[in-house]
């Protein structure tokens, strides 16, 4: 119980720079990536004219993601569809990962959501520059008056903070609540329901919110 604030770390000296690595996060992320790749190969091997159950589930997922992207991004949806589908699948698996005994959610570590949030940030701004040109892009920061420029910059940075801490806070909060409550009731009766709520329900909603917010930011920035 006393270990809820303990972070397993591994320190490496590389070219004079000290890197602190949370090896559990790295291991779990790689395991999730491997699972996704294996799943992709299994689905690819079974593509037939008349779809079987595996292919049907995969098609359902792909078409749902395609509709979602189309509704939000309209014309440029094709370019962002792979990102959206992959991000949602990855985050969903990340958030559900803690349900498997012995594994931990990589999203419990702030580094995972923060790096995905930063990726979304850079993607949004490059898309915006590409769609509008650098002049119009810079001009938007002076809306409504040029005095507001610092506030607009802070607002953009706050988006990264809110999107990544929202995911991190929910998953970390769920994990800590499960740990503490399990300790209080001696792991009797309650924990499965907590896993169902925090793992399955909150995990799904937060994966969806993260993905949707990323593409909504892109859609707003390119309009």
């Amino acid at each position: 119980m006393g270990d809820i604030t303990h972070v397993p770390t591994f320190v490496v000296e590389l070219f004079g720079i000290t890197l602190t690595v949370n090896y559990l996060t790295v291991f779990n992320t790689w395991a999730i990536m491997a699972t996704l790749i294996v799943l992709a190969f299994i689905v690819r091997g079974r593509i037939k004219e008349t779809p079987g159950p595996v292919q049907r589930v995969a098609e359902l997922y792909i078409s749902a993601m395609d509709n979602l992207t189309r509704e939000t991004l309209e014309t440029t949806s094709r370019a962002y569809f792979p990102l959206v589908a992959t991000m949602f699948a990855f985050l969903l698996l990340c958030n559900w990962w803690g349900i498997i005994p012995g594994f931990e959610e990589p999203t419990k570590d702030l580094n995972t959501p923060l790096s995905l949030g930063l990726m979304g940030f850079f993607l949004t701004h490059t898309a915006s520059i590409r769609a509008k040109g650098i002049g119009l892009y810079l001009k938007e920061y002076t809306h409504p008056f040029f005095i507001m420029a610092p506030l607009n910059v802070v607002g953009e940075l706050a988006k990264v903070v809110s999107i990544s801490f929202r995911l991190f806070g929910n998953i970390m909060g769920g994990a800590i609540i499960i740990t503490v409550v399990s300790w209080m009731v001696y792991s009797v009766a309650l924990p499965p329901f907590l896993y169902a709520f925090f793992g399955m329900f909150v995990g799904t909603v937060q994966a969806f919110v993260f993905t949707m917010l990323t593409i909504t930011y892109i859609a707003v920035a390119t309009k």
Partner: protein
Amino acid sequence: MDPVAVSLIVKAMYALGAAFAVGFGAVGPGTGMGLNAASAVEGMGRQPGTSSDLFRIMLIGQGATSTPPTFALVIAILLLFGMGDATYLVQGFAGLGAGISIGAASFASGLGSSLPASMACEAIARQPHLRRPFTTLMLVGQALSQTPLIFALLVSFLLIFLPASPDAGILQYVARISAGICMGFGSIGSSIGSGLAAELAIVGIRHHREPEKASGPITRTMLLGLAVAQSPSVFALVISFVLLLTI
């Protein structure tokens, strides 16, 4: 300072924290559950045929609304009975902070998550055939408007279980209590705002010409709106973390 005196002071502060958690934390949920019952009763008067449905929905909604005071009760019980040793003064400030955090969050979250439940009762009384989408939307809205509450519970747990160092100064005392205040009060607006958004999402489906078609896009927009409305509470969480872990 004398260890016996320190222990007494710390236990007194735990008691204060527990009192604030449940005392203040019960105001919102109590009002909210009353509102649920009010709209269920009104709906039964308007549409007696839906009585059994309304009764069920009222109980489900009230059950979800009673999550916040349950969390507050858990923290209060932990503060009163769970902590064996009270060795350092900083633990007392942390316990008081934990109580303030969960108390304020429970107040707001109970009020916020009762709004979709009462609107669902009213909506089902008017359009009983749409009971399924209304119930789904109510449950999703209630669960999501309790996100700030989960943040507050996280901060409270951290405050209680974070190891205390013997050489903590006045700065750390204040930082612990500030983390609780920051998270507790930071969650009030977000909770009530998300409750309002979920409530009006149900109204949106009610007023739509083809409610079955509208429920998908409305639910999606509601999810995003709720997430954005909860950004302030995310910022409060960030500041609480900074206060807790760096000072």
